[in-house]
């Protein structure tokens, strides 16, 4: 016993040792890489993960952790991060017009505010270099050459040399070739050479390094005062709390930035009048949709699994393989086909199956709801079918045998023994499937976009579930409001998770099986 023990431990341990060495080597390499790229968060996360891995796998205890760690690692990196980020964005005004940082907004406002000096010509341009300073050598409309730089207003440069009619060189300066232009393009683009001593004369700028134009900035940023002044009328735009530059009359510049706005997204969801009106009817339909989708597809899948799980059925392999096709098909294609089938004028349903009937499948509120459920069941029953086929294999034969010896009929065995057993082992799936459907944005959106609308200006359509309804609120206006949508996601998550957690507790599906 002692010897056999040693060998098993030895081999297993060596394997573990090699694996851990590999993990550590990779991990340390990654940490160094992250460190060298100054990604401190990644580096710290990796160090913690590595230490955890070593502690867990070289400890004699913590057996469960040994099995959980790989999954938890990926979970933390990919899933938790997404949720955390959504939670963070929910407290900001992220959305159209508030897309990035304040610095970016200032840069964008400045860039957009340069207006060409009216009736000014374009100047053929050669970019010159003296030391590390850049200068613009331009050819004036009258054919003469002139030089300008950041702190040197435009002045004639009679000594310039010409290539054709374009001034291309100047004594004491180096002419930049295309490669140099590209090397220093950010500097060249940023260069503003004054046209005269008076700032209102404007500046020369070049977009492409080969032509310069005269511009006047309309909005000028004052860094010290942190505000923009409109040079045409003297209006001053100051930063506001909601991340925009606003003048005294309340007029705001278009580009704003992202700021924290506290719980405003959450409160605005709760106080939004357009949300409160249809909220309850939408919520009820959401439950109906989710519950009936799950129940119908589950029973359909289960029934088919049981019916086809019989040796007397020849060709059951073919049946099974074909039955999973709806699940294997790209959903958006299937939905498009279903839409075509339900087209009242040209669709297969009305023209062929019902011989020219005029049934408004997707525009009648109740029929549309029915269609949405039918299509959803069609797309998901193969999943249930697969799972049931697998789960049936875990049913103990003893009970079945005992039952059939007792003279119980097929249906009795099913209803009293198989179904309850299967329900116990699949209940959590049903609950999470319910949660999935509760948020099944795609199924609804692809088929009906939440419609039909009773009235085209209604906020909620007949098939709108909670998530499609609130996303429409966040995205349908002039500006997309990601922050608001994130807040809504969080709130729906809380609702669904609470319902599900309660159901888990009620069904006892997480209790011990043995």
């Amino acid at each position: 016993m002692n010897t056999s023990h040693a060998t098993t431990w030895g081999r297993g341990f060596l394997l573990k040792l090699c694996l851990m060495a590999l993990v550590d080597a990779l991990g340390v390499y990654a940490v160094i890489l992250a460190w060298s790229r100054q990604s401190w968060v990644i580096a710290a996360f990796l160090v913690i993960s590595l230490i955890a891995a070593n502690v867990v796998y070289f400890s004699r205890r913590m057996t469960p952790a040994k099995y959980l760690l790989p999954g938890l690692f990926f979970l933390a990196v990919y899933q938790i991060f997404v949720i955390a980020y959504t939670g963070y964005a929910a407290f900001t005004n992220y959305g159209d017009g508030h897309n990035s940082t304040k610095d970016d907004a200032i840069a964008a406002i400045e860039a957009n505010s340069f207006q060409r000096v009216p009736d000014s010509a374009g100047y053929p341009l050669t970019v010159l270099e003296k030391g590390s300073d850049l200068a613009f050598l331009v050819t004036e409309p009258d054919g003469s050459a002139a030089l300008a730089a950041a702190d040197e207003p435009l002045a004639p440069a009679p000594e310039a040399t010409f290539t054709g009619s374009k001034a291309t060189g100047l004594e004491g300066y180096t002419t930049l070739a295309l490669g140099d232009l590209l090397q220093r393009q950010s500097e060249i683009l940023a260069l503003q050479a004054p046209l005269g001593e008076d700032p209102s004369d404007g500046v020369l700028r070049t977009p492409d390094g080969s032509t310069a134009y005269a511009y006047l900035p309309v909005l000028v940023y004052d860094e010290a005062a942190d505000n923009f002044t409109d040079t045409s009328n003297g209006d001053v735009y100051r930063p506001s709390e909601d991340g925009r530059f606003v003048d005294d009359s309340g007029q705001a510049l278009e580009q704003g930035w992202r700021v924290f706005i506290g719980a405003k997204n959450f409160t605005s969801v709760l106080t939004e009048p357009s949300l409160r009106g249809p909220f309850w009817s939408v919520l009820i339909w959401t439950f109906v949709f989710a519950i009936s989708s799950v129940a119908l597809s589950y029973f359909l899948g289960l029934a088919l699994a049981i019916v086809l799980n019989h040796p007397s059925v020849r060709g059951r392999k073919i049946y099974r393989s074909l039955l999973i096709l709806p699940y294997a098909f790209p959903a958006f294609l299937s939905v498009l086909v279903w839409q075509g089938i339900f087209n009242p004028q040209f669709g297969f349903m009305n023209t062929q199956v019902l011989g020219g009937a005029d049934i408004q499948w997707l525009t009648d509120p109740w029929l549309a709801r029915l269609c949405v459920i039918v299509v959803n069941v069609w797309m998901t029953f193969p999943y249930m079918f697969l799972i049931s086929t697998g789960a049936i294999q875990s049913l103990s034969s003893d009970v079945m045998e005992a039952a059939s010896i007792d003279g119980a009929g097929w249906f009795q065995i099913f209803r009293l023994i198989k179904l309850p057993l299967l329900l116990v082992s699949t209940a959590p799936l049903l609950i999470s499937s319910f949660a999935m459907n509760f948020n099944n944005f795609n199924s609804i959106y692809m088929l009906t976009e939440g419609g039909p609308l009773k009235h085209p200006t209604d906020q909620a359509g007949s098939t709108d579930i909670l998530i499609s309804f609130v996303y429409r609120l966040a995205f349908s206006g002039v500006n997309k409001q990601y922050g608001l949508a994130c807040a809504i996601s969080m709130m729906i998550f809380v609702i669904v998770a609470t319902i599900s957690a309660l159901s888990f507790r009620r069904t006892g599906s997480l209790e011990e099986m043995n």
Partner: protein
Amino acid sequence: MRTRPTLTALAVLAAGALTLTGCGGSSDTTDPVTDASTPAAESTGSLTIWADVTRYQPVVDAAADFTAATGVEVEVVQRDYSKMQNDFISQAPTGNGPDIIIGGNDWTGKLVQNGVIAPIELGDNAGDYVDVAIEAVSYDGQVYGLPYAVENVGLFRNPALADSTPGTLDELIAKGQQLVDEGKAKYPFMVQQDPTGGDPYHLYPIQSSFGATIFATAADGTVDSSKVAMGGENGARFATYLADLGARGIITPNITADVAKQAFINGEVPYVISGPWNIEDFKAAIPDVAVDTIPSAGGEPSVALASVQAFFVSSYSNNQLAANQFLVNYVGTEDVQLALYEAGQRPPALKAAAESSTITGDPIMKGLAAVGATATPQPNVPAMSAVWTYWGPTQVAIESGTGGDPATVWQEGCDAIDAEIASAS
């Protein structure tokens, strides 16, 4: 559960040894990489362009010549058109976006509002482009895109069924109906719609012939996007007309793009309103297919919406100089515009290219250009998002006769749009 302490120690040592070799190897390899990549990020002479599948190949070909001439590498990335605008808005600020994207002119306002594109200086060449194209990419007094193609719908006619197009839409429908009665056609006339979103873009020539334009345009050409101009009396007349066509089954939400295209290809309908994207398939089925101007329904000239395809430069690009060179001095030339036309069959935006014999010699292009001559650019202001939200569904409701009096339904739709626009400012 007993490991010997010595073994554990050994394990740690072994792991440590491997770790050391690991980091020894790594430091050798990382340093040159970091050294090389840091300046590359600042960058010189390489452009990344996002293009959808229809523009991908033409742009790749055009870029190859540019690279040969300037040494600037151009990488074209194929992106999904429907996601490109949003992806660009969210990715550009991270510094990982492209230098240039190719998209519809209707994106302009949103891209400017989010600060992700920079103005383009066309210099004195702005007059070289067709007016509608420049207007389409102008926003708030600045030009933001280099236009390269102007797309608009026209009336496609099957000459085997109808030899001409009458002067008014009513006459056209009557003529189509006659063909139906004679058993030569199955439907008199079709405009593609959609059961949920409608299709205001394809319906616009009809709507505009009632004078119900999207926004009011002042005498100086500025568009007032603070409220829509589709409502009122003109809008009411259009709504009533549309409701009538809907009741007669001529324009219904059930006639999807797919249905309309198939019916035209099968020779079941003499007239459809469609655009350059279907030319290839139409020509394959009906080689002598003709394109005419769309007859007026409401008395005023029917005006189509022109959607202009343009190149936009990212304001976060480190290669704006190269990007501007590529666009202004290269894509804006006749040869390149014609090459893009050859590859994508979209009428060029540069006058010289649009007026070249390649285009004017093609009857279909000529027909589309005739419609395009009076077309108005698709509005590019952010307020259009709110317009699209209600515009289509309102038309669907009117076509299918739900919701009651069409004029009221229409006006309510317009009021809802105005309310959205007001709440955003």
